[in-house]
């Protein structure tokens, strides 16, 4: 037990992303309303984006632009942040927005068709057909 708490505290970013991911997954599985499911899906995606952003963070480091590019200074990799995870997440955010857009568009189509967004009511209507 005494080991567990420092492990959790030291790797808190992982615990946060896992918690968020599970909240999202729970919403997708358990919620009855289609829009709530979509929100859960978005939380799920955001959790992974946060995971990537957190692994690219470094205390006391700066953006990877050489301040003394013309001089003969030694470049210390320690002083710079790896920008790649953040850049990747720009793409993932775009993908997430696109997915959200498609999901909401589909939800509108479903609503126009069944006049409800509650899954059990829609399924009841389908069974009646």
């Amino acid at each position: 037990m005494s080991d567990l708490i420092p492990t959790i505290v030291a790797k808190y970013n992982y615990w946060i992303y896992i918690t968020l991911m599970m909240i999202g997954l729970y919403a997708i599985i358990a919620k009855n309303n289609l829009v709530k499911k979509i929100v859960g899906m978005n939380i799920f995606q955001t959790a992974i984006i946060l995971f990537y952003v957190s692994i690219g963070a470094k205390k006391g480091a700066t953006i990877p632009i050489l301040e003394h590019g013309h001089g003969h200074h030694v470049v210390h990799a320690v002083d710079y942040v790896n920008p790649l995870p953040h850049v990747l997440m720009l793409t993932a955010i775009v993908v997430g927005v696109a997915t959200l857009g498609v999901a909401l568009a589909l939800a509108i189509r479903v609503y126009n068709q069944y006049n409800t967004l509650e899954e059990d009511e829609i399924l009841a209507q389908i069974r009646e057909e």
Partner: protein
Amino acid sequence: MSLQYPALIVVVPLLSALVISIAGWVNKRWCFPITVAGLAVTAYSSVGLLLRVLDEGVIVYKLGGWDPPMGIAYYVDHLNGLVLVVVSVVALLNAIASKKSIEQEFPEKIGPFYTLYVLMVTGLLGIVVTGDAFNLYVLLEIAALTGYGLIAMGGGRGPLSALNYLYMGTIGACFYLLGVGYLYIMTGSLNMVDIARILPDLYQSKAVMAAFIICMVGVWIKMAFFPLHAWLPNAYTHAPSASSSLIAPLVTKVMIYVMIRFILTIFTPEFSFNILAVSKPIVWLSVIAICMGAILALTERNLKKMLTYIIIAEVGYMVGGAWLGNRIGMTGAILHIANDALMTLCVFLAVGNIVYKVKGAEFENLQGLFRKMPFTMGAFVIGAMSMIGVPPTCGFFSKWYLISGAIQAGHYGFMVALLFSSLVNVVLFFRVFEICFYEPFSDHHGHDHHPEPMDEAPVTMLVPLFIVAAILVLVGLYTGDIVNHIIEFAIPKGLV
């Protein structure tokens, strides 16, 4: 020009999607020729690329001239060369065959449909050709998002099924992204070959194992591997014919390709089969997938939905074959990617023709079809024979390799599952033949019985169907050449 084939494969359909969406505003009639032209150039490039690979071996194409691992590189070897040809040819044939059914089902949405269609092909081809793990994720989502649109386009229950598919598909893609994140933490690289170079020292690391498993789970959700299959049957059944005959043959097969790429290239067979020690349970899972797919197919009274459950069983074939951990099983799995794509296309095109004429694929609608649509049903019989595994159709040969692999691995459960599913396929398809063979029951004492006149689908739908049916037999006859000249080089020497 031949040097640029890898780029053309992705760029041509991407640009033609832009042109089609503009052309759709001006004149809808231009959309179809542009689609076919774009896909034909793509198919030509991918065949040319495969021939080059056969000549020269692995081709590395640096996009923008940036050297890997910093830049994105396309790697084409025998494995994805083969899959590229299959994907582009299936997409081209289906585009030609489905013209009439699109005009019938949603005449006002021809422009958007073809735009999405070509974009989806771009995504699928990109997944196959790329050598960058993150690039693969983006293309995966391109293929998935366009797929949701294509499924929802038909109306009816399509949008709801597409939405359910979207939830599952997004979770799958996110899992894949998470796995790639772990790989990136451990190796600092996203280039597949570079990751493969760095990884061997890290094979004992828990994070690497987690990365592999998480990626696998993501890919399994995307390929509808039982028990992660729940989205597939409804999504494929409620999609319009033209979409389902594109999505059903290709999406699951491309995801199988991604799985095999992970096992063989990014990781080594040594890691996947020996260090990880999960191949036995996975093969048992695929045994369950095959059996459940077969049993669920038996309960269906709708031809299209029955076929979707057969797809789930077929996914089990390929996952099981790949995880048997020997060369013959892997050969069978790779061969089955090509064969299953073609035979699924064949039966779905036939169903598309039936739906075009009869307006439904429920079993009650199918009566008397052998007289009404003899040519469509003839091609359907060839596709069904291939799914059952009757020689000389290609389905027999890949099943043969899979069963030999199961025997060599000593995994008799998998062998029994394959035989069981073949037998169930016999029952399933002969039940359909029986229904189609007899005329509709007439109430009037049978005296004034008029057999329905022949009412066949248009020629533009029949010719591609015949071509696919002929390909099924041809691929079956030339299986030996495909295995010896292509698949033999796709599997690393280390795997025996």
